[in-house]
């Protein structure tokens, strides 16, 4: 054998080596739980075959034997090639479930091993995702979910506008409405409604004032909703003026326990029997959710057949359904043409129409609020992600050894990336689940501080959309915060980190730089949010400091309206209110009592806009301006403490037979008489049905904010109730102690006076004022909370990055101390780093928040978007918290023992 035998043996060894190499390569594709067994199976077979083929065969010659061995070797190698398809088959059929489970199990084990770290991350995520989900469910409910009508995009509202008289949105007059209906070519239908005075419902035991809406026959069909039970109004019965009503689902449930036998029966409204013909579904809330009764409106008899169709009393609300292929623009053009034609009537001079999608109308200015909130809350989530990214990055430095070990024993980079991403995903799903819980709580908090009149707010829930959204942001969050550290951890020379120990500077430096960039971003984002919140708060303070023009403390208000058909004559009404005033005045702690038709800060303000002009001058070209007209008793100004600027209050000398008098507010006085004193002059008021008369101006009162604090006062005229005895009044009582404590006594007095006339909405003036502020309060409180959250997260981020900085450079610090650095040098070194980060973040944030002016401008009141208080205060606050956050690590750095630090290697 000799030389050739040795050669042969070497070749044999080479073959078996090749075979085993091949198997090891193929094993890479086998799912890891199966891998060891698989490899052993193949190796055992190969080694066994190898033994077999070397078994001596006495029948063969040496030469033949060598040849057959060579063949067998080739065959064995070819057979080993089969391991590859086998491995791939396993890879395809066994991979997914097993691998994933293994990754997941590994990740969970790792996360459990670091409980503090895991809990911190899940907590931060729960805050971020929870806040985001809560706000998204509001955005979803209010903005995204379609209105509960078929093809809601085709519904529009139509308004009268007059740029000359600066009237943005007036309801059209019946005359114009009738012409729109007959002339337009773009609508499938146009319906009108009018929120009438509440009606008194009564049965044998109880009575209640119910909000009612008077609607044209096609009202329900324009919205496209069928009744829950029964039917809606029919043209014939409306023309016959049958007394029929449709009830809201809520009223039907509340008062009749959802009894379907009610259909066709009569109920007593304002002491008159009305037949119930239908019940609307529970989600039909037009014009608003308080409406309990719809009554038909005979538009034809009421207006169209009058000798002169009224055109100057603009009070309707009109909704129309666009024809299927008509756009808003086309409808607007059509309406423009019609209103140009209607200018033939002098009262229509300068009036145009505006077509606005119903969805915009309902949501209104809430869109801006919600979008700003959503932006803010996304910013918080982004900061939270950044923080977590940072934490993971810090951790990744500690784990670089672990990863290097895993790489050395054969884990592929793909495998490790997958592993780390799985970990992020598990974290963020846990965060998402926790976030959902906090979203439920957050939503409850949101709902409790939300203004009650927010449109569609009762439709806000956590639904499938919201759940999908939470899942999506959880996954996106995982990608965002997992991606950077992962890329980082698996990049570059891993064997390098095997050699150095965990405090090695190579990997650390890059991570530090990256971590710093993240914190700079966090501070900038927090800055932007805080600046936004600061602007809103400043604006809120501005609003509540606006002089109201009256004193809202200790004022009880309520609506009282004796049935106009029972109290038919002026004397009856004056007697009723006179007696009521005396009896209320007699209650303990009541100081003064007054009454008005138009109460400020009240959504049911019943003060129509009427044209006025100076009696000594002709009617102005292009129509007279309009001002709010209300009827008040002498006690009104006194009770509300509205200042009398000149002239006198109403008194007993003003009665039905005396000279008609008016008190005007200072805006109107300035407008018509400039600086001259108008008392003693004469003012013409066109008071619709009552006609145009001159009224003697007897007094001027201070301006009152009527609609809301942020709305500038309008011209106002007050007539004496004694001369124009209205039946619908708001009573105002000034009390010595908490006004609400008198509510029951007041209710009793009113019921004693006339048991058929229940009181309606007793509240305090302060509540009415704060109700008009609810939106501002809602958005500024929420934004402030979010900004606070952002600031806390950013501070935490700064702390963690500085702590990492110190622990990473312990050796260097030790060296410096050993070389003679003083402790304050060390502290300065750390603080300098912190200060640099804070400065960069604040600078970047400053630039970002300059961009706030655009989205926020509609929400601000009396604040420039570059408010100095905000733009000086926020940077100081943020920079100091950032420095404070680096102070703790700095102190730790000061205590570094050089000997310990240097020995660490």
């Amino acid at each position, binding site marked *: 054998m000799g030389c050739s035998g040795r050669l042969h043996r070497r070749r044999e060894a080479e073959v078996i080596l090749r075979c085993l190499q091949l198997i090891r390569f193929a094993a890479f594709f086998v799912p890891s739980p199966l891998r060891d067994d698989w490899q052993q199976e193949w190796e055992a077979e190969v080694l066994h075959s190898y033994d077999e083929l070397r078994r001596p065969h006495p029948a063969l010659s040496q030469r033949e034997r060598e040849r057959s061995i060579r063949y067998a070797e080739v065959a064995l190698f070819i057979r080993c090639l*089969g391991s590859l398809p086998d491995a791939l088959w396993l890879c395809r059929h066994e991979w997914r479930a097993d691998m994933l489970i293994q990754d997941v199990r590994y990740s969970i084990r790792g996360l459990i091993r670091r409980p503090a770290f895991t809990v911190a991350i899940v907590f931060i995520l729960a805050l971020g995702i929870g806040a985001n989900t809560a706000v998204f469910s509001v955005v979803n409910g209010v903005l995204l979910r379609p209105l509960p009508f078929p093809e809601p995009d085709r519904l529009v509202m139509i308004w009268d506008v007059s740029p000359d008289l600066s009237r943005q949105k007036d309801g059209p007059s019946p005359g114009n409405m009738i012409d729109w209906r007959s002339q337009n070519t773009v609508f499938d239908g146009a319906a009108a409604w009018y929120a009438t005075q509440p009606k008194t419902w009564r049965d044998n035991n109880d009575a209640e004032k119910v909000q009612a809406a008077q609607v044209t026959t096609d009202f329900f069909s324009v919205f496209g909703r069928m009744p829950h039970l029964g039917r809606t109004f029919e043209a014939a019965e409306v023309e016959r003026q049958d007394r029929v009503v449709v009830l809201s689902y809520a009223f039907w449930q509340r008062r009749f326990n959802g009894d379907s036998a009610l259909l066709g029966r009569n109920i007593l409204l304002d002491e008159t029997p009305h037949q119930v013909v239908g019940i609307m579904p529970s989600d039909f809330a037009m014009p608003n959710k308080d409406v309990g009764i719809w009554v038909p409106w005979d538009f034809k008899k009421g207006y169209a057949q009058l000798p002169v169709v009224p055109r100057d009393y603009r009070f309707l609300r009109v909704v129309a359904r666009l024809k299927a292929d008509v756009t808003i623009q086309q409808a607007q053009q059509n309406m423009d043409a019609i209103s140009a034609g209607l200018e033939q009537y002098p009262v229509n001079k300068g009036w145009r129409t505006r077509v606005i999608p119903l969805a915009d109308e309902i949501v209104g200015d809430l869109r801006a609020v919600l979008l700003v909130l959503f932006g803010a809350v996304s910013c918080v989530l982004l900061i939270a992600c950044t923080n977590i990214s940072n934490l993971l990055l810090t951790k990744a430095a500690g784990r670089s050894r672990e990863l290097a070990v895993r790489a050395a024993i054969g884990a592929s980079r793909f495998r490790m990336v997958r592993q780390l991403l799985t970990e992020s995903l598990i974290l963020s799903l846990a965060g998402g689940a926790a976030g959902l819980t906090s979203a439920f709580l957050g939503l409850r908090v949101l709902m409790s501080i939300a203004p009650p009149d927010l449109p569609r707010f009762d439709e806000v829930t956590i639904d499938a959309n919201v759940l999908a959204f939470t899942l999506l942001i959880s996954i996106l969050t995982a990608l965002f915060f997992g991606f950077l550290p992962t890329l980082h951890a698996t990049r570059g020379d891993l064997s390098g980190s095997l050699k150095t120990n965990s405090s090695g500077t190579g990997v650390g430096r890059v991570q530090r730089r990256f971590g710093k960039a993240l914190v700079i971003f966090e501070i900038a984002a927090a800055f932007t949010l805080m600046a936004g919140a600061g602007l809103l708060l400043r604006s809120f303070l501005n609003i509540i400091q606006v002089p109201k023009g009256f004193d809202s403390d200790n004022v009880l208000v309520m609506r009282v309206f004796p049935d106009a058909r029972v109290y038919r004559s002026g004397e009856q009404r004056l007697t009723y209110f006179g007696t009521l005033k005396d009896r209320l005045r007699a209650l303990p702690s009541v100081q003064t009592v007054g009454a008005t038709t138009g109460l400020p800060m009240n959504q049911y303000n019943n003060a129509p806009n009427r044209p006025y002009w100076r009696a000594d001058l002709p009617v102005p070209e292009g129509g007279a301006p309009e001002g709010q007209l209300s009827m008040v008793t002498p006690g009104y100004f006194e009770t509300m403490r509205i200042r009398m600027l000149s002239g006198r209050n109403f008194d007993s000398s003003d009665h039905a037979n005396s000279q008609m008098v008016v008190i005007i507010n200072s805006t109107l006085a300035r407008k018509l008489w400039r600086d001259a004193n108008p008392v003693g002059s004469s003012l013409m008021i066109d008071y619709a049905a009552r006609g145009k008369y001159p009224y003697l101006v007897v007094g001027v009162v201070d301006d009152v904010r009527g609609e809301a604090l942020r709305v500038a006062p309008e011209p106002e005229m007050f007539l004496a109730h004694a001369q124009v005895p209205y039946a619908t009044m708001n009573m105002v009582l000034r009390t010595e102690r908490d006004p609400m404590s008198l509510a029951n006594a007041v209710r009793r007095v009113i019921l004693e006076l006339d048991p058929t006339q229940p009181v309606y909405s007793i509240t305090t003036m302060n509540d009415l004022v704060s109700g008009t502020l609810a939106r501002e309060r809602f958005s500024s409180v929420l934004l402030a909370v979010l900004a606070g959250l952002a600031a806390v997260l950013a501070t935490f981020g700064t702390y963690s990055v500085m702590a990492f900085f110190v622990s990473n450079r312990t050796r260097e610090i030790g060296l410096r101390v050993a070389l003679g650095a003083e402790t304050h040098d060390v502290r300065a070194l750390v603080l300098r780093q912190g200060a640099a980060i804070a400065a960069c973040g604040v600078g970047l944030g400053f630039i970002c928040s300059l961009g706030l002016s655009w989205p926020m401008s509609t929400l601000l009141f009396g604040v420039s978007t570059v408010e100095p208080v905000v733009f000086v205060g926020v940077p100081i606050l943020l920079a100091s918290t950032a420095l404070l956050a680096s102070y703790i690590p700095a102190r730790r750095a000061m205590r570094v023992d050089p000997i310990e630090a240097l020995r660490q290697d």
Partner: protein
Amino acid sequence: MAKTFLTYTSALVLEAIASGYKYGFDVMDVTGLPSGTVYPAMRKLERNGFVRSKWEQEKAAWRNQRPARRYYTVTASGAEALADLRKRFHGLQRAVAPAEGS
């Protein structure tokens, strides 16, 4: 039991295992099928519960100075399936010569 559709190849592998060829390479030898076909077929059979695999005694492996081999045996449901397969593929039984000592 739900009938699993088996190819002729799988049937042949099952027949070989039933005939006493317990190891993967032996099955290849007797059926003449390539390794890239036999092993996936065996994996499928195992997943379907027709065959069961076990590791041979460590002692035997130790004696031959190699790792323990994995051997396959037919389960009860495998035997049942094989009876069906023999009806479907005529001559299946004849395609595999019985192993020594079985």
